């Protein structure tokens, strides 16, 4: 049983889920992302690290076209999801975001009940046939979000009443409930205490079984703990991209080495 899982994982890891080529992002006159090429594998945790303002969050937001909501933002280059250009005119950004879910830096539960928070995505995408079906989806998402046991008795309580760590896991569960193929996480632990961080990290590791996860983080320890692939961004450039182990033990670029040893950043 165990063997089979490892075999499957090895096969999956060779699939490219997202492939970005020559991506440029402009905020007004500012050239925020320069010539970024990256291949994100399926069923893998990919970490984006780099100093503040290096463009890692901006690049992450390109992957589900969240930058479309910012008026002055312009994206050039190709980003392919399963071989299809997501910036193609025929692609509906709304459909894309259902496939590429996102978890934000600060927990942002809606001012609704816990149940309605989770059911939000499935409801708008019509994923449930009936109430029982929806209940099942909600329970499954909450279990995957590792928060089911804490909230199962108070699904009607407002999501905003949970603690910060619980709120963030609720938001992860909410993103998972729409069954995305890729999950983007923008510094999901930056507003959390170490214990909640640990819970979220364990959660990310479990999510890898089903999704391709891309995580932006300021903590290099976190990147080392949860990811298999790491990309180092500096001043809008992708400096180095490779297996996490290699990046942290044997970086090829001296900027990467300076950053992970704490000399720049």
């Amino acid at each position: 049983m165990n063997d089979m899982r490892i075999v499957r994982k090895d096969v999956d890891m060779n699939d490219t889920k997202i492939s970005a080529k020559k991506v440029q992002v402009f905020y007004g006159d500012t050239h925020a992302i320069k010539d970024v090429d990256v291949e994100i594998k399926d069923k893998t945790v990919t970490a984006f690290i780099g100093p503040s303002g290096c463009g890692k969050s901006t690049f992450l937001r390109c992957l589900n076209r969240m930058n479309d909501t910012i008026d002055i933002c312009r994206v050039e280059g190709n980003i392919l999801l399963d071989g299809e250009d997501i910036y193609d005119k025929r692609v509906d950004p709304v459909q894309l975001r259902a496939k590429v879910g996102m978890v934000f830096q600060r927990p942002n539960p809606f001012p609704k009940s816990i149940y309605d928070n989770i059911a939000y995505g499935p409801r708008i995408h019509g994923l449930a046939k009936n109430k029982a079906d929806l209940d099942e989806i909600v329970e499954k998402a909450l279990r995957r979000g590792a928060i089911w046991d804490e909230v199962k008795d108070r699904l009607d309580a407002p999501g905003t009443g949970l603690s910060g760590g619980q709120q963030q896991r609720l938001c992860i569960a909410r993103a998972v409930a729409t069954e995305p193929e890729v999950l983007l996480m923008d510094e999901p632990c930056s507003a959390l205490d170490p214990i909640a961080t640990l819970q979220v990290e364990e959660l990310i590791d479990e999510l890898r079984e089903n999704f391709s996860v891309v995580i932006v983080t300021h903590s290099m320890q976190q990147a080392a703990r949860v990811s298999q692939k790491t990309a180092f961004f500096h001043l809008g450039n992708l400096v180095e991209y490779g297996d996490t182990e290699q990046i942290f033990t044997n970086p090829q670029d001296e900027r990467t080495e300076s950053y992970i040893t704490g000399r720049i950043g």
Partner: protein
Amino acid sequence: MPLLWLFILILALGLLGFILGRTRALKDAHGDIRLLHSLPNYYGSNVLLAVLIPGLAVLLLWLILQPMLIQGQVSSMIPNTAYTDKGSLNLVMSDVRRVAEGLDIAVEQGSLTREQARDIRTELTDIRARLGAVGVALGSNVESYVLKAAQKYRTMNAVGNWMMTVAVLGAALAGFAVSMLRTNKDMRARNSVEKVILGLLIGAASIAILTTLGIVLSLIFNTIEFFKLYPALDFFFGTTWSPSFGGGSELGILPLFWGTLYVSIIALLVAVPIGLFAAIYLSEYAGPKVRAIAKPLLEVLAGIPTIVYGLFALLTVGPMLMTVFGSDGGLGWMQGGRSVMTAGLVMGVMLIPFVSSLSDDIINAVPQAMRDGSLGLGATKSETVRQVVLPAALPGIVGAILLAASRAIGETMIVVLGAGAAAKLNLNPFEAMTTVTTRIVSQLTGDADFASAEALVAFALGMTLFVITLCLNIFALVIVRKYREQYD
């Protein structure tokens, strides 16, 4: 000394105090600013305030108290036979003041000497003619007790004014002396000036509150008077409104209240959806350029005086409705241009900017993270607005709507011109009806006896309206406050 001169004198004394206080402090510190506790201007201001505050306070108190005291003294000179109640005593007293003023003017113009003005007798002189000659017209011949009272009034006023000048200048000079003596380099002038500023701010705040209290009290007393004359039960539950100043009028509030309610409901039915949709468009969809133009334009609507809206109702909306719902050529539901519908529609237009600009602020206050969260789950913009932004902003929007409702209830001009004057309990929105506010206006304008139930009913109506809008406002504030706590 005339009031203006006294005032200017105090100001001049204050300015002198400012300069001297500043100089004295600097001298005490041997010209070195660093040795002073506060900046030199604070010492100056301290003396200035020490002159102005006691001086002006005494002046103000004197101006309030002196007329009251003199009034009391003089009115005791009027024989009991000359008046029946407080109202007619007031009339006699106003005669007294008028004669006293007339004597002043006559002395000023030289047609009477000071002594003559003091000793003149009705038995010997035709006062009315003498005063008429200097341009003071009196309604009737001057009774001897009125003249005596007027002469007493004059002397007391003269003495009072002289004493006031002394007292005011004394207070100002005392303040000047004390603050000058206390001025030295270690004095905490800055702190005491700061205290005065605090007092000023508290004063401003309490004036606003006290005024509200005064308004409520004046309404309450007159309302109580009214209920002495007219049973409260008939007022609150009467279904007929037919005031007749000859007596025997029926003053039931229900038809008026129904009119107010009906017009307000129609107004809100117009204003809430349009205002809300406009707010959603402006805050969620419009680009910065459209917003920069459209928002001020929408708010221009709020700056139009309501009487202009009233004219619009009377001249444009009423006739327009008549062509569709009127009797000739239309559906025949409408008898004339004035109707609940006319006033309601126009009032709705008036309330649009009110609802939209408040809702716009509230929608903008919903954190962007909420929108990102929803969009990140693959929701469209309108799904996000409908299911996340609006529910989050709902308490605030309800507050905005309630505030708009209390404006609609209190609105007068549009209703006067648009809704007509007939008090009716009717469901047809194309009938002319009237509202509480317009009846208040019509009960108090004209030559009505102020002590009659027909005039006093206006205060009871006003009080009812005040209580209703107050409740609505409090309700709105509570809701808005509750909403605020959510994102803190």
